[in-house]
Every structure is written in C-alpha cells, then in structure tokens.
C-alpha cells in the first residue's frame, strides 16, 4: 500500500502552481493538507504525474474577514479556522460543523479548501458552503473566477473546477444579524462519513435546509416560512428528490427518514435561534 511514483513541486509562487496545473492538467494534483489525497495515493486510486504543494505560499494562509464576508485561503487548515477566535461570532454554522470533520489529528493538517476540492458528498464543509450560499474562488493562468457553491459541486467527487484551476479560497457570508443556524449530523461513529448531515439557515427571507450524505453532493432547498404539515410535505418531497441510495451503512429509506426528521429538527432549531 505505497503510492506510485510522482514528481513533487513545492510551489514558492502562485504562478508555479498555475503552471504545473496548466501543463499537466488532470495528471497534476494539488496537495495542501493531504488528508484525503494521501490515502488515495497510497491505495493507488489516484496516480498523478506531479503533486504540487501549496502550503508554503503565505498569501494562501490567511483568513480575511470584512463586515460582509469571510475569505478562507487555500492553505488554511481546519484546526486553524476552528481556533480562529472570531469564528463562532462571524459564522456560527461553520463553527458548529467543523468539529464533525474527521478528528482533531486530521483537522490539524486538513484544509478547508482541500475538503471543497475533494467534494465528498457527505462532507461537512461543502454542506456549510452550500447552505450559506458561499462561493469558491478559482484561479489559473487564464485568470480568476468565482462560482457559487451550489453549482460548484456537480456530483460525487466532481466539481466545476477546470483542470488548470486552483481553488484559491472559499468565501462565506458572515452571519447577518437576525439570522439563525442549526447543524446536526448522524454517522455510525463520531468522525465517520455522515449518513446524513443537515444544516439550516433561517433569515427574514425564509429557511434554507442543506443536506449532505444523501444525494451525490450537498444539496439545498428553500423552505420559505413553511411549517406544520406543509413543512413535513415539503421535506418529504425534498427527501425523495435527493435520490438516496442503499449502501453498506444505511438504506435509502433510512436516509430519507433522517432527512425528514433531522431536517425538521434543524429547521425549527434555526428558527428558534433566530428568534
């Protein structure tokens, strides 16, 4: 269980990263924390020709918060963000979800953007980004673009990133006043891939629920101000729309049931928390 051979580039300038990606396309892999890439390399599921290390670029290491947004650079580790003193004030949903990402020992190395790049359908960070309407900032030799999280994730481990692009940052809206949040997750064990994870955001415009672990990507739905049996019906329809599948750990039917029940619980909690 050892990786196949690859070249290694420790980038000292952003342009080097762009060059490696432009020149090698899908044969290049960015390594940041490596917490997902390394097992794939060791299992030889991934066999890049070149691995480019972006963890020595100071401009990617920053968390920048202005009054409306939080911009998290590609080099920011999950533990670093979790330890950011302003986190629970600026973005409580992310603060609630981050402790569910792997374990302390993997959060110490794993990055926020690495999780987005990997696009695991049960991952918490993509879920939070989708729930909050965040954006992903991509850069390449060709320039820079931003793409909304809900269209960035295109399926199981698939994203709208082009082969030559680096995920340079994740951008989240800061918590607007008067908004409420809730997060719940259920897995077989703590730290496991979620069988279902639900994040809800309640604002004066309505309530949005995003779900991970059920569809092939984190998926959201706006529930406006629905409640009572209307909310149940809408949740039921949403649960079916996610096209859940059976797997080793849970049935599709079980996943739908978690979406209905956990979904309702987080929606109500987010609304309470707003009130």
């Amino acid at each position, binding site marked *: 269980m050892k990786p196949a*051979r690859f070249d290694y*580039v420790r980038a*000292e300038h952003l342009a080097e990263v762009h060059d490696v990606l432009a020149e090698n396309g899908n044969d290049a892999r960015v*390594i940041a924390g*490596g917490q997902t890439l390394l*097992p794939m*390399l060791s299992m030889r599921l991934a066999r890049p020709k070149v691995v480019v290390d972006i963890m020595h670029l100071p401009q990617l290491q920053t968390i920048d918060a202005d009054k409306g947004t939080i911009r998290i650079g590609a080099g920011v580790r999950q533990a670093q963000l979790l330890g950011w003193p302003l986190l629970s004030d600026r973005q409580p949903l992310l603060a609630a979800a981050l402790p569910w990402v792997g374990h*302390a020992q993997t959060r110490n*190395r794993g990055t926020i953007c690495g999780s987005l790049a990997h696009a695991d359908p049960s991952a918490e960070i993509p879920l939070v980004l989708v729930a909050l309407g965040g954006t992903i900032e991509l850069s390449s030799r060709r320039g820079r673009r931003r793409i909304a999280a809900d269209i960035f994730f295109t399926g199981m481990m698939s994203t709208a990133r082009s082969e030559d692009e680096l995920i340079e940052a994740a951008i989240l809206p800061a918590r607007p006043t008067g908004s409420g949040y809730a997060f719940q997750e259920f897995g077989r064990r703590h730290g496991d891939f979620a069988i279902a994870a639900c994040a809800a955001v309640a604002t004066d415009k309505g309530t949005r629920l995003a779900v991970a672990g059920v569809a092939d990507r984190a998926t959201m739905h706006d529930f406006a101000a629905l409640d009572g049996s209307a909310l149940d019906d809408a949740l039921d329809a949403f649960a079916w729309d996610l096209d859940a599948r059976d797997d080793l750990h849970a049935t599709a039917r079980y996943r739908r049931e978690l979406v209905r029940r956990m979904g309702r619980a987080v929606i109500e909690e987010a609304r309470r928390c707003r009130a």
Partner: protein
Amino acid sequence: MPRLNATQRHRVRLTVNGRQVEADAEPRMLLTDFLRHELGLTGTHVGCEHGVCGACTIDIDGVPARACLTLAVQADGGTIRTVESLAPEPGRLSILQQAFRRHHALQCGFCTAGILMSLDCYLRDRPEPTEAELREFLGGHLCRCTGYTPILKAALEAATMLHKKRPEEQLHA
C-alpha cells in the same frame, strides 16, 4: 523550488526530537517509512496507512498529526517530535508515560505511541480536560486491547498531575 523528480531520491532535512537530521527520500515516500526505515525511529508505528487508526500520530510542527498521511518531502524543513522524545532521560518516564504504566493503559503497545503523542500535545494546551473532551479527542485513535477505559483514566490523572506542577516547572507531558 525545483521539481523533484519521481524516480530520484532527494535530500530531506528536518528537525526531529530537537536534532537536525537528514536523509534521502523519493517524492512518494511516506513520512512513516522515512522516520522508521531511513532515520531508524521505529517507535512510530504503522497500523493502517489510511489515516484512521492513529498509530502513526506524531507531533508535526507543534500539533499531533498522522505521519502516514504526510509525505517525507512535505516535512522538509519542518519540526517533528516522536515518542522517542517523551521520556526525560533514559530509565525515567514522563508523567504521562508513568500514568499509562500505572493504569495498565497499554497491552500490546502498538497503538500507544500515537496516543501518547496526541495526548502530549493536547495536555500542553488543555490543562484541565474533561473526560468527554478527552474521549472526543482520542476518538482519532483505535486501540484493540484495552477498551480505552484505562487510557482515559491515565490521561485524566496525568492531566491533573501536570496541572499541579505547571506553575513551578515546565515539565513535559
């Protein structure tokens, strides 16, 4: 930095347990193999090579992390501590190690190095952890022998002892 060629071995220099060391590695070499077979530090164990069991956990740049999920070349220029650094001197054990021995918090000892390194880092920052916090933190480790109960007891006792000592002397966990 030049592109390190896949088929060649490249010099990797780092600080391990307070000493500057260097050895050669192909870009693909895992840090676990580098520590164990190039540097001879066999106290760090390999249990799963996919980041779940925690046996290979070491202190990388001040935080506990999986050596098996790290390439040796990534660690170039970095600072690492392994289980070999924990005892204050040969023939003496640290407070944490003593607590493990007292509570029979190890049996086969294979997962132990990783757990000790995690706790050694953790107890420096969290002098008074609750049992629930410790459980969650140690959730990143698998032990097949002990059932965890004695590990938690040892960790709690070590935390208390370290906390008492802390103001007077800066002892290693």
